C-alpha cells in the first residue's frame, strides 16, 4: 500500500524518518498494517492529526482567512462553525490543497499531517488529496458513471490502482461503511445520478473513503438534504470517526452540537475583512462555557 506517505510517491524526496512516535504512521514497513486494513474489517484505528500553524489564505489580493492556528485531532469530529463569509470553507479547502485550484488563490503558513508539511517543497498536491479526502456541499457523483464505478473512481486513478477482485471488495466495504450497501446492492450498474439526494451524498462519502484516506473533510454535507437524510449522514459521521479524522463545516448549530467532539468558531470583524479563528475547544465547552463573548453571542443565536 504505497501512497501512505506524501513523499513516497515521487521517489527522491524521501526524508529521513524521525524518531518521534507520532511519525510512525507515515513509515513504510510493518507499521502500515494499521492504516491499510484488509477490506471488510471494522476495527478502530488511529487516524492522523492535522495541524494548521499561522495559516493565511488569499484570493488574489483579497485576504480571506487570517492567521489560523489549530489542531484537528485524530478519530474525532471537529466542527467549523461561523457566519457566512468568515472563511470556514476556504480554510477547509486549504487542508487538502483544494484552495490553490481557484485561479489566483494562495496560501501562507504551514499545515502538518502527522508532522509532515503538506505544503512542503516537493510535496505533490495529488498525494495530499489522496490522504485528505473531501465531501462537498452539493452531492456530486459522476453523472455518466454507474454506482459501482463512482465508488471505484478513485481506485482507477494511477496512484491507487487495485486489482479487479480487490476492487469489488473495496466497493462493497465502502458502500457498507457509508450505510448504502443494502439500498444499492441490486443496482450497482445503474447511474449514480438516479439516487436520491441523501443517497447521492452517502455515495460520495463511499467514494471518498474507498481510496482509504486518513482525514475526511466535509463541507456542509447536509445542507442540501432533508432532516431524515441529514440524520443518516450524522449517524454515519459518528461511525466514520472510528477510522478517520473528520473536519466538518456546518451552518447548523444543532448539527455541530450533536455530531462533533470539538468545535472551532470562525468570525470576521466586518465584511471585507479577513475571517479568523475566534476559539476552538471541546464542543461542550464552546456551547456551554465559551471563553469569548463573540462565541457566546453566536452560539446562543444573538447574532450571525
Amino acid at each position: 500500500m504505497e501512497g501512505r506517505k506524501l513523499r513516497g510517491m515521487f521517489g527522491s524526496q524521501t526524508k529521513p524518518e524521525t524518531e518521534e512516535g507520532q511519525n510512525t504512521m507515515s513509515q513504510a514497513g510493518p507499521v502500515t498494517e494499521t492504516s491499510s486494513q484488509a477490506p471488510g474489517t471494522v476495527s478502530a484505528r488511529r487516524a492522523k492529526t492535522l495541524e494548521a500553524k499561522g495559516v493565511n489564505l488569499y484570493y488574489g489580493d483579497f485576504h480571506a482567512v487570517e492567521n489560523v492556528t489549530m489542531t484537528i485531532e485524530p478519530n474525532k469530529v471537529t466542527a467549523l462553525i461561523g457566519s457566512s463569509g468568515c472563511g470556514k470553507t476556504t480554510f477547509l479547502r486549504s487542508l487538502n490543497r483544494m484552495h490553490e485550484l481557484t485561479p489566483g488563490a494562495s496560501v501562507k503558513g504551514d499545515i502538518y499531517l502527522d508532522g509532515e508539511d503538506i505544503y512542503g517543497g516537493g510535496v505533490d498536491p495529488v498525494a495530499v488529496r489522496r490522504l485528505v479526502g473531501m465531501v462537498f456541499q452539493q452531492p456530486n457523483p459522476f453523472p455518466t458513471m454507474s454506482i459501482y464505478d463512482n465508488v471505484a473512481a478513485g481506485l482507477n486513478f494511477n496512484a491507487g490502482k487495485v486489482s479487479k477482485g480487490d476492487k469489488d471488495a473495496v466497493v462493497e466495504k465502502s458502500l457498507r461503511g457509508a450505510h448504502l450497501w443494502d439500498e444499492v446492492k441490486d443496482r450497482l450498474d445503474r447511474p449514480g445520478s438516479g439516487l436520491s439526494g441523501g443517497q447521492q451524498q452517502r455515495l460520495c462519502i463511499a467514494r471518498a473513503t474507498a481510496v482509504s484516506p486518513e482525514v475526511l473533510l466535509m463541507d456542509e454535507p447536509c445542507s442540501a438534504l432533508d432532516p431524515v437524510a441529514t440524520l443518516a449522514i450524522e449517524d454515519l459521521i459518528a461511525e466514520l470517526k472510528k477510522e478517520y479524522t473528520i473536519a466538518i463545516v456546518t451552518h447548523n448549530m444543532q448539527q455541530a452540537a450533536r455530531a462533533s467532539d470539538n468545535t472551532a468558531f470562525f468570525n470576521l470583524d466586518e465584511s471585507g475583512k479577513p475571517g479568523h479563528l475566534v476559539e476552538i475547544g471541546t464542543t461542550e465547552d464552546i456551547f456551554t462555557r465559551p471563553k469569548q463573548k463573540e462565541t457566546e453571542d453566536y452560539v446562543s443565536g444573538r447574532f450571525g
Partner: protein
Amino acid sequence: MAHFDTTTNAGQILAAASGGRRRRGDRIFSNAAVVAAVTILALLVGVAVFLVTEGFPALTASSSELPKGESFISYVAPLAFGTCLAGVLAMIIAVPLAIAVALFITHIAPARIAMTLGYLVDLLAAIPSIIYGLWGIFVLGPAAVPVMKWLEEKLGFLPIFEGPASITGRTMLVVGLVLAVMILPIVSAVAREVFSQTPRKLQEGAQALGATRWEMIRTTVLPFGKSSVISGAMLGLGRALGETMAVAIILSVSGGVTFNLISQANPSTIAANVALNFPESSGLAINALIATGLVLFAITLATNFIARMIIARSEVR
C-alpha cells in the same frame, strides 16, 4: 406570503393572470418560432424535391443513354466512395487534434495564451475554401511529397500507403489534411464550449479523490462533453463531405475505387466532380450530376442520423 381575504379575490387575480387570452408577447414569440421551424423544414423538403425530380431522368435512363455509357450506379459509386474516404480521413486527423486543442485551451493553457490560441483557431474558419485549395496545391502538396515517399518506402506494405507515391502531391492524403484543417475550427469550437462548461463540482470531486489533471479530464470533462463533441464532429464531417473547391483544385483524379492515399490515381468526390464537370455538361449529363447530388444528400442525412443515434444511446444508460 400573500394572503387572499376571500376566494373570489384570489380567483379574479388568477383569471387576470393566466385565464382568457395569452399575453401578446407570448403569442408573437410562439408564432415566430413556428414559422422559423416550418421554413427550415420547407427548405429541406424543397431541396430534396428538386434533387429527386431533376435527378430522376438519370436514375431511370439506361446505361447507353448516360454520358459515359455506364450505369448510374457504377458512375456514382466511386464518387461516393471518394467522398466518404476524404471525409473519414479528415475526421481521423481533425477530431483528435480538435479535442486536444480544446482541452489545452480550456484546462491547461494559462488564460492569456488560451484566449490568443482560441482566436487563432477561429480565424482558420474565416479563410475561404479556394484559398485552402491553392495552399494545398502550391504549398502543402509539394511539401508532402517527400513524406509520402517515405511512407511508401517504410509503410508500403499497408494498402493505404502502397504507392507509387505521387510526385506532385495531389493525393487523397493531402486532401484529407487540408479538409482536416478546414473542419478543425468548428469541431474544436464546439468541444471548447462544452469542455469549459464542465461543472466545477464534478472536476473538484475528481481532484479531491487524488486525480491528476489528466485523470480529472478523463473522468469528468470528456464524458461530460462526449455527445457535444460527437455533434461537433458531425458538423465537421458534413462540411468535409460537401467541400467542393479545395478538393476540385487539389485532387488528381482517375476514377476507380482505391484505398491508396498517396498515389496519383484517386477517386473524385461528388461535390468536386459536379464542380469540374458541370460547365461542359448538357441534357441528361446534368441530370446525372444532380442525381449524384441526391446521393450526397442521402449520405449527409445518414451520417447525421447515425450520429444522433450514437448520442441518444450514450445519454440514456
